[in-house]
């Protein structure tokens, strides 16, 4: 009995030692793994089951003043290749080229490059991405990247600017407000399983990275569209090179529309030239021409040098001054100051400038903001060129008076007129009202900002009444007149400097019109500038109608009641005129019965008008001479051939 017991005790002892040794070995290994190599192993492990997920920045959107989106961001996929992992280059490059609409040779070159990573095509469409997905090829992958869309296309393209492939603003507001709209790139660490799927065991807190803020603009899509459309129509009609329309709210300095031609579509910015991208309204300086006479008039009235009815002798069209001869388009004798502005007499204004003297004139040029940027929140603003009076030649006093030898940006001009419209305050213009964060909080807000008082309210009122005469019978800007409203404004036809030969180019002109409406209680100030028109060069013919159409449309849009009520339209006599019929008949033409649309003679010279009338076999009756400024019935209006056309000419 004792022997087996001793044996089993012996065995137990061995087992005990065995297990003890085993535990010691395991314990030792545990210490080795946990303590000695712990950190390193933990890192290795985490590398396998934790992954850093990059959260792409969400760029904020751009909206117009009514909340209409102008720029929105979306994520789209970009296709990359890892050339070393690709087996069948030939077949794959054919497939990729077919799906992505690229050249086979280009794709082949890319995917057989000696690089670890190459982009095949960035920002592909969702259907392309789907097809790439189904290829399921080794070494080809896709990656989400933010992509910018401009749903309104070319509308205000130069103002909005554009974003590069790496989500950085490169031009326009996208550049200026990049810090607000960009948003942050973030990353969060999440676990992944054996198949690489993300398992959000830590919750989604880390995934929320604040997006960029949205910008709300002062631009109004409808007015902007009208401005662009009218500008383009005029540029085509008069075969001009370029043009600008700016519409500003005079009391706040908010820019309602800022149109440039040639237009620019930021959706394919890379395919368009720098010419198209340029925001001429702020980056380009022009010699303003006669529109600058208003500045001299304001200075002279404010300083009390002249009164509205003071008479000046206009020398019958020729006036020797400082060794040169100053000309007027038409010879005039004695004219009151208001009439001098109405007919835009160079000689009259030279005499006003002589009375004012250059120091005082210069003081007002500076006060109106010329020679310095207006401070608008758009990049690349030019200051224009204004010389100090001690550098003026003797003739400069006269030429500055009618806008030569000085250069201004279109925006400076429109802001100066806004100061006259609002009673004398120079406002700082702006295009962004506010930047709004993700939670709806305003991060930045632009408020109306008065730079300074330039002229007294009395002078402003007096000057605006004088500017109203410009658009009424006998003025140079009658084509800017809007039925039912008093329009104040001034035409301009500036010569262009010849950079090659010096002096002024023989035929190149800049036609412009700047005005505000309704004159006594202005809702908008607008500038129209047409660069190098060919068919006709006069501001009153080329630019004024653009102003009229844009301003009339904007007033209707703002529902501003006419000051002089229009007569009630006669009740429609013909059944065609009832809306019910119009809706039923698509492509309604004006040609009903014997009536058809009247051809357009406006802007043509007397000779061109007669030639056109002969070609179209149209009877015309002429009133006056020069250029056609008005026709009855209006272009496109109902008209029958027998009745003929009445053309009013001026110029």
């Amino acid at each position, binding site marked *: 009995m004792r022997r087996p017991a001793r044996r089993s005790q012996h065995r137990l002892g061995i087992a005990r030692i065995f297990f003890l040794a085993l535990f010691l070995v395991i314990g030792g290994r545990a210490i080795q793994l946990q303590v000695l190599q712990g950190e390193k192993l933990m890192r290795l492990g985490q590398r396998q089951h934790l992954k850093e997920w990059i959260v792409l920045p969400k760029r904020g959107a751009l909206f117009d003043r009514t909340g*209409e*989106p102008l720029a*929105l*961001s*979306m*994520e789209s996929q970009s296709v990359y290749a890892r050339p070393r992992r690709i087996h069948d280059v030939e077949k794959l490059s054919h497939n990729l080229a077919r799906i992505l609409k690229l050249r086979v040779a280009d794709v082949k070159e890319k995917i057989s490059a000696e690089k670890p990573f190459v982009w095949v095509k960035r920002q592909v469409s969702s259907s392309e991405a789907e097809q790439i997905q189904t290829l399921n090829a080794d070494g080809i992958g896709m990656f989400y990247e933010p992509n910018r*869309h401009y*749903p*309104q*296309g070319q*509308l205000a393209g130069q103002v909005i600017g554009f974003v590069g492939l790496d989500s950085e603003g490169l031009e326009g507001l996208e550049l200026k407000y990049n810090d607000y709209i960009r948003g942050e790139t973030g990353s969060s660490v*999440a*676990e992944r399983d054996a198949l690489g*799927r*993300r*398992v*959000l*065991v830590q*919750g*989604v807190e880390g*995934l929320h990275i604040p997006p960029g803020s949205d910008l709300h603009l002062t631009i109004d*899509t*409808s007015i902007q*569209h009208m401005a662009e*459309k009218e500008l383009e129509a005029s540029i085509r009609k008069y075969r001009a090179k370029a043009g600008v329309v700016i519409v500003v709210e005079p009391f706040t300095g908010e820019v309602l529309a800022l149109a440039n031609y040639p237009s620019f579509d930021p959706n394919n910015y890379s395919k368009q030239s720098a010419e198209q991208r340029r925001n001429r309204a702020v980056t380009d300086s022009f010699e303003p021409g006669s529109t600058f006479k208003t500045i001299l008039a304001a200075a002279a009235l404010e300083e009390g040098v002249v009164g509205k009815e003071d008479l000046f002798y206009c020398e019958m069209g020729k006036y020797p001054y400082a060794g040169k001869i100053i000309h007027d388009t038409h010879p005039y004798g004695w004219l009151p100051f208001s009439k001098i502005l109405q007919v835009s007499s160079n000689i009259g204004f030279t005499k006003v400038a002589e009375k004012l003297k250059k120091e005082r004139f210069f003081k007002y040029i500076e006060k109106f903001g010329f020679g310095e940027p207006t401070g608008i929140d758009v990049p690349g603003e030019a200051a224009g060129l204004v010389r100090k009076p001690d550098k003026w030649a003797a003739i400069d006093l006269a030429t500055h008076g009618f806008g030569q030898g000085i250069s201004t940006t279109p925006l400076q001009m429109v802001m100066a007129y806004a100061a006259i419209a609002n009673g004398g305050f120079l406002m700082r213009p702006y295009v962004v009202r506010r930047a709004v964060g993700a939670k709806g909080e305003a991060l930045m807000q632009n408020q109306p900002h008065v730079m300074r008082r330039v002229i007294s309210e009395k002078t402003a009122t007096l000057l605006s009444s004088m500017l109203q005469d410009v658009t009424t019978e006998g003025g140079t800007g009658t084509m800017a007149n809007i*039925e039912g409203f008093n329009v104040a404004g001034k035409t301009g036809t500036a010569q262009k400097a010849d950079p090659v030969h010096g002096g002024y180019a023989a035929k190149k002109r800049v036609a412009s019109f700047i005005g505000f409406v309704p004159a006594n209680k202005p809702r908008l100030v607008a500038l129209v500038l047409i660069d190098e028109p060919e068919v006709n060069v006069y501001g009153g013919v080329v630019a004024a109608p653009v102003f009229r159409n844009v301003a009339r449309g904007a007033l*209707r849009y703002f*529902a*501003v*009641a*006419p000051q002089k009520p*229009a*007569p*009630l*339209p006669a009740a429609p006599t013909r059944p065609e005129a009832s809306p019910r019929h*119009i*809706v039923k*008949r*698509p*492509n*309604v033409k004006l040609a009903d019965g014997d009536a058809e649309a009247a051809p357009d003679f406006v802007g043509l010279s007397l000779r061109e008008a007669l030639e056109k009338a002969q070609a179209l076999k149209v009877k015309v009756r002429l009133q006056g001479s020069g250029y056609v400024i008005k026709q009855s019935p209006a272009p496109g*209006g109902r008209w029958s051939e027998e009745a003929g056309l009445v053309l009013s000419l001026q110029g």
Partner: protein
Amino acid sequence: MAPAGGAQARKTNTAKRERPARHARATHHRRVFLIAILTAGLVALVLIHVWLRLQVVHTGYVLSTTSKLQSRLEQENRELKIELATLTSPERLELLARQRLGLRTPEKGQVIVLP
């Protein structure tokens, strides 16, 4: 008497010896029972822990899927917003109004804005 007394004494001796043994056995049983309960408790805790961990992973998957769905819907929403804005751009609206509906710019006197 002596033998009887002796027998009795032996009996009590045996009884005396048996009592501590039973006591020890009972204590032993109790200890085993306690250990068993503790072990079972421990096992249950471990199981609960594993179950919770599994639940966390499962919820993680659900969250991940939902989060993906959310981003997909957000993306879709953005695409639709872009589409809407493109379709309602003033240029397109004007074209449609003119061509499909035969509308045109109102002539003089056709618009009356009431003061």
